[in-house]
């Protein structure tokens, strides 16, 4: 066998081997992905798509046994939404929760992070851990505790007011106060999360910037305005998106504290979806509502990206 022939022979031997290696790697890749993907596709991806289809049907309790017996009714569910006063009320409530909740959550989170990062030198760990406790605790348990704290007759808040001779109000029985308390609870429970992410962002700001500002004679407020805030813009964007998405789905707080009352003034969309889908068994209608919420979340996220991008 000449050298040339040998080369050709070895090359033709090598090629299938390489192809086999490629095939093997591809198979292994899919094999490693398979367990996750199977569960993920069946119990997450499929329901997300199915929800879209369901929203165009009159699916209700009777169709549960045979899902394919539901009829398509076009956009009827969506049209009905626009004339459902309870849905419109829920949409308004959710907007109030999200707007006030997100702004306060970021403001308090940022204040705590700045104070921890540059304001103090000792006991940082105690404050960081303490402020984070509510984030990891069950929101159901916390809402139960808060309901007790604000109980009109034997709650701690009205008890404290009474020692000053003030007769406290029925906090959760008054629509305006109840909304305020739920927003306060959302912030109380979540700002520790914003704080941790802000802290990570703050520690990414080069110290040289502050030193340069100091040489130029900047005071603390000027430092905060011209260095800290602009440098935190990406973190701010990230947190705004994250908090908005989270608060658009608020459920446990009103479920435990007010059940959506008084007068549906604390009923969020997610709870109305729950009522329509699982109390009244109007699954088609509930899906239309859920998908509307989804589209709103996607749109809000995109707009926030655009807005905050264009400013930087």
């Amino acid at each position: 066998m000449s050298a040339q022939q040998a080369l050709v022979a070895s090359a033709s031997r090598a090629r299938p081997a390489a192809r086999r290696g490629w095939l093997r790697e591809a198979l292994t890749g899919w094999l490693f992905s398979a367990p996750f993907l199977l569960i993920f596709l069946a119990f997450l991806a499929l329901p997300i798509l199915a929800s879209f289809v369901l929203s165009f049907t009159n699916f209700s309790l009777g169709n549960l046994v045979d899902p394919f017996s539901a009829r398509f009714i076009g956009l009827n569910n969506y049209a009905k939404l626009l004339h459902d006063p309870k849905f419109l009320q829920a949409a308004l409530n959710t907007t109030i929760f999200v707007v006030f909740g997100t702004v306060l959550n970021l403001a308090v989170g940022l204040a705590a992070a700045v104070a921890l990062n540059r304001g103090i030198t000792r006991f940082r760990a105690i404050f960081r851990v303490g402020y984070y406790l509510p984030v990891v605790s069950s929101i159901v348990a916390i809402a139960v505790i808060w309901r007790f704290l604000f109980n009109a007759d034997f709650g701690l808040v009205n008890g404290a007011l009474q020692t000053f001779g003030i007769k406290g109000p029925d906090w959760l029985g008054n629509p305006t106060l109840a909304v305020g308390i739920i927003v306060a609870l959302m912030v109380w429970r979540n700002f520790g999360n914003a704080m941790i992410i802000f802290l990570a962002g703050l520690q990414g700001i080069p110290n040289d910037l502050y030193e340069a500002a100091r040489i130029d004679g900047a005071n603390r407020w000027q430092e905060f305005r011209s260095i800290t805030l602009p440098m935190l813009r990406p973190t701010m964007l990230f947190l705004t998106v994250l908090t908005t998405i989270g608060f658009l789905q608020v459920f446990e707080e009103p479920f435990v504290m007010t059940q959506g009352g008084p007068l549906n003034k604390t009923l969020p969309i997610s709870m109305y979806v729950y009522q329509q889908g699982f109390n009244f068994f109007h699954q088609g209608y509930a899906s239309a509502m859920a998908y509307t919420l989804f589209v709103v979340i996607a749109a809000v996220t995109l707009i926030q990206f655009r807005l905050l991008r264009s400013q930087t």
Partner: protein
Amino acid sequence: MSVAAPVRPASPAAVVQTRPQPSTPRRRRSPGGWWVYVALSIGLVFLVGPFLWMVANSVKTSAELHHVPPTWIPQTFTLDNYTTIFTKLNFPQYFINSVIVATIVVASNLLFCSMIGYALAKLRFRGKSAVFLIVLATIMVPQTVYLVPLFVLMSNLGFVNSYPGLILPFAAQAFGVFLMRQFIQGIPDELLEAARMDGAGEFTIFRRVVLPLLGAPLATLGILIFLGSWNNFLWPLIIATSDQMYTLPVAVATFSIGQNAVDYGLLMAGSVVLIAPVLLVFLLLQRFVQQGIATTGLKG
């Protein structure tokens, strides 16, 4: 993906870096003053106060609970509330349900997320980027969107009011894939090549080379998934249709709006049972939790 852009790169070293370093005088100006401590301490009282209030009230008698004005320190200490929820109510069952669900959900996520994370980070195969994109795209999809069809699916599979019904929707979570892929990408290819040269198959490489290097990220993922599972409420509320399958949050919420709605002694004891395990895990392992939040920006 731009959402992830501001997030710090994840590595065990980042834990050290993100710690504030109080002793470097060059780094920062003298602290803001005593009033910052005062403000932060007042904040701390408002955050920790409700927890102390919960514990104090869980050991009060019914008469004292309804005393006006309320007391902080229990006048007569009693464990009756705990005895009642564990003997007269079904709390042992709820607790066991919560533990079973959390354990299986954590285990399956650790295994499946690291496996697919390895495939996405280190193996070449067609469709890989599509898989990653689809998984990533669902991270921001709210649970509310798919609750209804998920319930339809579960009822057709006969999984309503069962452990599979409670577990399966959370057994493969997208943010875990994101986390594991990011960490595994940091493992040097040479290490894997060396093992391949020695004739090791991919499963051996995964088990013997990759997994042992994933201690810290697996701990982080495990804790985040555990917290998420333990506190999970809306889906268990829907799928657990009988008392026997309630998890702790469902039980506490149901009691709080049902006939025991005004029995705050029982409710406070139930809340302690619900919160205590999580606080224990958090206080022991809080380094991993906060690191995980700073890495993924998501809570479990």
